[in-house]
């Protein structure tokens, strides 16, 4: 199992985890009717990947345009998993993508980045015009 690909639906995000290349990406919107049911398998395959001993660099692109409060908890869980492996010496870079003028999403990025000590966190601005 060297990748996890879940195409985005109306209310669940697109998940593109390329484990071989160390590139993780989430796109679209996240407000699943069953948060645990959706994120459970995502956590599981991410955990398996992070537990592998041959730890190369990891890049995580957070490109969600919207997520609800229960998805925020799930995302925080992913961030904490990444911080743990980064603390163990694995290079991890998180890129938090924000559409220009989306102050709410920018603020959320700051909230999530607050206690990252070992993960390199960067904010990237995207042009406006994605799905509303």
């Amino acid at each position, binding site marked *: 199992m060297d990748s996890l690909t879940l195409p985005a639906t*109306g*209310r669940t995000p697109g998940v593109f985890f390329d484990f071989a290349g160390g590139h993780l990406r989430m796109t679209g919107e996240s*407000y699943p*009717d069953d948060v645990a049911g959706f994120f459970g398998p995502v956590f599981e395959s991410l955990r398996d990947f992070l537990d592998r001993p041959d730890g190369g660099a990891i890049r995580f692109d957070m490109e969600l*345009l*919207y997520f*609800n*409060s*229960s998805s*925020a*908890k799930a995302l*925080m869980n992913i961030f904490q998993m990444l911080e743990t492996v980064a603390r163990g010496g694995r290079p991890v870079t998180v890129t938090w993508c924000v*559409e220009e*003028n*989306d*102050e*709410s*999403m920018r*603020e959320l990025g700051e*909230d*999530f980045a*607050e*206690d990252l000590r070992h993960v390199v966190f960067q904010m990237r601005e995207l042009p*406006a*015009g*994605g799905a*509303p």
Partner: protein
Amino acid sequence: MLAQQYASIKRDLDERGIVFSFSGYLSEGILYSLGEALREKMALEEADGPTIRRVFSVFVEQMQNIIRYSAEKMSGSAGRTVELSAGMVTIGMEGGKVFIVCGNTVRNSEVPRLKERLDHLKSLDRDGIKTYYREQLREEPDDGSRGATLGLIEIARRASDPIDYDFDAMDADRSFFCLKVRV
């Protein structure tokens, strides 16, 4: 008579600036469909993406609160679990701002805790709400809350004015709870 009766309900809604209203059993499916209609309407009126997402975000959290916490529920597991929760949601315009009011029945025993949470949120300024959000984001959910605290903070955060709430006692066991948010 029939048309007159319903025209009067419709007129009452119109006069209050209400654009969408739904009363009855709510489900995740209804949340999705109403949410899409809300976003399409705002997009047609040329609201920008961040504004639409702010309104949508308050809408989703309010609807999910009803679906999860309404004291008036039907559930069955005919094949898959469906949760139907009675409540009402109205969305309208008032003084150039969008407002969302949600109402549902709650048990009287839950009123003090809910009041306490809402009063705490109302007492906080922008920075206070932000700090509270950061704390709760890292907190394990408390028993039976299914993440309600973070949802309420999210609502307060996206609101442009302080949130308004009210309770109306129905009987010895239940009250009707209303939450009004302007975005």
